[in-house]
C-alpha cells in the first residue's frame, strides 16, 4: 500500500514537473517564416532589411518540375533604427515570426560596411537563433537588397546558390569564404584585418544573376577597399588558406602560350625578423601542382622544360604576390595578411615596441620577402604535349 502510494506520487510529480514547463519554447513549424538569407542596407539613418523567406506553400504548387524542392522564396523588406528593430518590425509584414537558424548568407551593402559593420554584425553574433556559421558577404557598388532580387537559375533561392558556391570555393581558388563567427574573430584579433567576399549582380542573357568574386578588405570595422579575383588568390596563398584544386595560369616558352597548373596542395610558412629596426616578413610558399592544360605545342614535360616552367612560374608568382602586398600596404593600409598577428605571436618583443593601436602605421613599412617553390607532379592523362600532324 505504501509502495504503490510512492509510485503514484512519483508519477504525479513527473506529470506536474513536466506540465509546469508549459511547452516552453514550443513553436509549430507552420508558424515560422524560415529565413534563408538576409541583406542589410542603410539610407537616411534607417537600416533597411531585406529577407529571403522560404515559402513551402508556394513550393507545393510548382512541385515536380525538377529535382529541387520547388520552393519559391518570398522577399520582405523592412526598416528600423537598429537591426533588431527592423527585424521586429518585419513581423507585422510577414505575419509569422522570422526564424533565423537556417539563414545561410548575410549580405551587407558597401555603404553600410564603409560606415562600420559592427552595427550589423553584433546582432548576428548576439542573437540566440542566428548562427555564427552563416556566410557574410559585401555587395560591391550596389544595394545589398538587389543581390537578393536577382534570380538563381539552378537553385531554389539566391541564398542557396551563394551558400553552395562558398562551400565549394576551394575549387575556384579565387574566393575567400568567411563566416560571421570567423569574421568577428579576425576583427577582434590584434594585427589582422578582416576580409569578406564580395558579391555583385551581373547581367547574364536577360536576367540578373548573383556573382561572387573577389574580396572586401576591412580596417578595424570599416570597409577600405576591394581585391579582385586574382589578387584574392594571392591573398589565399599568403594566408595559407589555399586549398586543393585551384588553377593558376603560367606562361612558358612562347610569350603567348599558357600552361595551366592545378594546385593539389599548398603550404605557406611566414617568419619575421628585424632589419634596421624594421620588421621583415619572410614568406615561403610550397605548392604541389600538376599540369592541367598546355595551350600550345611546346615542351614543358621534359626535365629541362618542366624546370624552366617552374622557374618562370615561381618568379611570376613571387612578383604578383609582392605586388599585391604592396598594393594593400599602400592603398588600403589594412593588414589582411596577418603580419601583425604573426609578430604578436612569434616576436612579442617587437610587438611590445609598437605603441598600442600603432600597427596600422607600422604595417605599410613592413618589408616582405616572398619565396615560391612550385613542384610539378604529373601531367594529367597525357604525358606529351599535344602535337599537330604534318
Amino acid at each position, binding site marked *: 500500500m505504501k*509502495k*504503490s502510494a510512492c*509510485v503514484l506520487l512519483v508519477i504525479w510529480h*513527473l506529470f506536474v514537473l*513536466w*506540465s509546469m*514547463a*508549459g*511547452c*516552453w*519554447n*514550443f*513553436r*509549430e*513549424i*507552420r508558424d*515560422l517564416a*524560415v529565413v*534563408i538569407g538576409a541583406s542589410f542596407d542603410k539610407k537616411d539613418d534607417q537600416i533597411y532589411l531585406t529577407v529571403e523567406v*522560404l515559402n*513551402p*506553400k508556394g*513550393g*507545393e504548387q510548382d512541385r515536380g518540375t525538377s529535382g529541387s*524542392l520547388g*520552393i519559391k522564396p518570398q522577399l520582405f523588406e523592412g526598416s528600423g533604427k537598429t537591426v533588431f528593430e527592423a527585424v521586429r518590425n518585419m513581423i507585422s509584414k510577414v505575419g509569422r515570426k522570422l*526564424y533565423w*537558424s*537556417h539563414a*545561410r548568407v548575410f549580405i551587407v551593402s558597401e555603404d553600410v560596411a564603409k560606415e562600420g559593420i559592427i552595427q550589423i554584425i553584433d546582432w548576428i553574433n548576439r542573437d540566440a*537563433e542566428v*548562427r555564427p556559421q552563416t556566410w557574410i558577404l559585401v555587395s560591391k557598388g550596389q544595394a545589398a537588397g538587389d543581390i537578393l532580387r536577382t534570380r538563381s537559375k539552378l537553385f531554389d533561392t539566391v541564398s542557396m546558390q551563394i551558400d553552395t558556391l562558398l562551400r565549394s570555393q576551394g575549387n575556384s581558388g579565387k574566393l575567400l569564404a568567411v563566416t560571421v563567427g570567423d569574421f568577428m574573430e579576425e576583427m577582434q584579433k590584434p594585427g589582422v584585418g578582416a576580409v569578406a567576399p564580395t558579391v555583385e549582380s551581373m547581367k547574364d542573357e536577360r536576367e540578373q544573376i548573383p556573382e561572387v568574386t573577389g574580396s572586401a578588405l576591412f580596417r578595424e570595422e570599416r570597409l577600405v577597399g576591394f581585391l579582385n579575383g586574382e589578387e584574392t588568390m594571392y591573398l589565399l596563398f599568403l594566408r595559407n588558406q589555399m586549398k586543393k584544386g585551384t588553377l593558376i595560369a603560367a606562361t612558358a616558352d612562347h610569350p603567348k602560350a599558357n600552361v595551366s597548373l592545378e594546385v593539389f596542395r599548398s603550404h605557406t610558412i611566414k617568419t619575421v625578423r628585424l632589419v634596421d629596426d624594421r620588421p621583415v616578413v619572410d614568406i615561403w610558399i610550397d605548392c604541389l601542382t600538376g599540369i592541367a592544360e598546355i595551350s600550345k605545342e611546346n615542351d614543358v614535360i621534359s626535365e629541362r622544360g618542366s624546370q624552366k616552367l617552374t622557374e618562370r612560374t615561381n618568379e611570376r608568382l613571387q612578383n604578383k604576390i609582392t605586388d599585391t602586398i604592396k598594393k594593400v600596404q599602400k592603398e588600403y593600409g589594412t593588414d589582411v595578411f596577418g603580419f601583425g598577428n604573426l609578430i604578436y605571436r612569434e616576436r612579442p618583443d617587437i610587438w611590445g615596441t609598437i605603441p598600442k593601436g600603432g600597427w596600422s602605421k607600422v604595417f605599410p613599412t613592413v618589408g616582405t620577402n616572398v619565396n615560391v617553390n612550385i613542384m610539378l607532379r604529373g601531367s594529367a592523362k597525357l604525358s606529351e604535349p599535344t602535337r599537330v600532324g604534318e
Partner: protein
Amino acid sequence: MTKTAPAGLRRNIRKSGPTSTTEKPTSAQGQKFNCSLGSNLKVIKKVLQNDGLVIYRKIRLATTPLRHCYVIYVDGMVNGDLLNENILRHLLNYDVRVPAQVPKMSFSDVLMNRVLSTGSVQKDGSIDSAIQSLLYGNVLVLVDGIPYAFVIDAKGWEIRSISDPETERVVRGPREGFIENILTNLTMIRRKMINPDLKMVFREIGTRTRTKICIVYVEGIARPEILEEVYRRLDKVQLDGVLEPEYIIEFIRDAPLSLFETIGTTERPDTAVGKLLEGRIVIMVDGSPFAITLPYLFLEYFQANKDYYDNFFYSSANRLLRYISFFLTTSTPAIYVSLVNFHQEMIPTRLLVSIAAAKEGVPFPAAIEAFIMLMAFQLLREAGVRLPSPVGQAVSIVGALILGEAAVTAKIISAPMVIVVALTGISGFIVPEMPGVSFFLSLFFLFACSFIGFFGYIFAVIAVTIHITSLRSFGMSYLSNLTSIHLQELKDTAVRAPWWWMTYRPRLLSRDKRRLADPGRTEL
C-alpha cells in the same frame, strides 16, 4: 507415464483445503477408505455427484470368498486400449486367489503383482487424493475388503500435435514447440538433456483448478538460493485457478508494478534447455505451451535463440539491430516531435522545408498527431491479432490505406508522421518480447517531449534508466550482464561471441561457472 510427487501434492491439498469452503460441502476431506466397498463407493459417488463423465464398472472377481471390485474412470481421459486389455480383461479372467505356494502373499499383492499389468499402480488410502487422481485421468480400482484404492496410471486423451511455435519462429533451428500437455513438454526437455542432473519437481497450484506445474532445473548449475526462493514464492500463491503462466508470474515476480518483465516465457524447448544450461530455472505449467524462465534479465529481451544457431558475426549484427530497433521504437515519435516543435534548428534546411510543406494545413500539433497515429497503430495491431487471418488481412489493408493515404490526403495527419509511426511500429516487432514495454515507453517519452523537447526526452530516459537499474530478478541485478566489467560477461551481450570463446556461464547466475570443459581454443 508419470509419477506425481505425492509429498508436494498432499501438502498443497492440505493447505488449500479449508480455504475452498462452499455452501454444500461435498468434498471427502480427510476421509479414508474403509473395508466396505459399498460405503467407499457411496462416498465417491456423493463427491462426484452430477459428473456425467465418470464411469463405474462393477466386476465380480474370480476368487473365494466372492469379492466384487469397481473400476472407476473418467470417460475420454483414459487410454481405452490399456483399460480394456490390461485392466478389465485381466480382472475378469485371471484367477486372483492367493497361490498356495506363497501363502504369505496378501490378496492385494496378488492384484498388484499378477493382475494389474500396467506401468504404474499405487495404493492410495485417502479418498480425497484418490478422487484427485481419478479426475486427472487415472483409473481407480476399488476392491471389496481392501481399505485403499489402486490408482492405475492409464492416462490418455486427445492432445494437439507438436508444431512450429507461432511466437518464436526461426529459419534455422529445431521446429518443435511446447504444447498444452505438461508431460509431452517435459519429455521434450528431457530428450534434449539426457542427464540425471536434470531435475523435475512437480507441484500443484490453484485451489480449484489444481493445475500441475513442474519446476525444472539442472542440479549443479542452478543456484540453490534461487531455487529456494522460487519454492518460497510459489508456496505463497493462493490463486483458485491457473490457466496460463502469467497467473503465477504476477504472483512470484519481483517489482510487480514495473513495466519491465522480470520473468520470461518461452514456447520453445530448445530455448528452455538453453536457459537451463545457463543456470536458470524453468517452470512448466500444465495447459499452456509457455514455459516460465527465471531469473530474467533485461538483456534477454534482445537475445533470441536463433542468435546461437547462426554464424556469430551475423548473430551479433542482428543483436545490434535489435538494440537499435528498441531505441527506434521507443524514441522515434518523441525525437520527431521535439525536433519539429522545439528544435527546428537541428533539422537540415531542405528537410525542414519538406516537413513544413507537409504540415501546411494539418490542424494538430505534432504531439497530438503522434498520439493519434500511435493509437491507430495499436488499434490495427489488436484488431489484426484477434481476427481470423483472412479478415485480419482485410483489416490491415483498409487500416493502412485509410491511415496512410487518406488521412494524409485529407490533411488530418502529415506524411512524415506516418513514416515516423510506421518506423516505430515496425521496429517494435523486431523485439517481439516487449510489445507492452515499447509502446508505453514511446508514449512516456512522447509525453515528456511534448512539453519541453529534448530536455524532456533526456529526463525521461534518465528516469527509465534509474528504474531499470533498480530492478532485481530473483536476487540478480536486472542489468547485471550489461554493466559488468568482466570480459567474460560481455561475450554474450551486445555481441554473441563464438561458442568456443564463451568459456564461462553468466557469473552470478550459475553455480558451476565453467561452460567449456577443455579451454583448448578459448583464448585468442
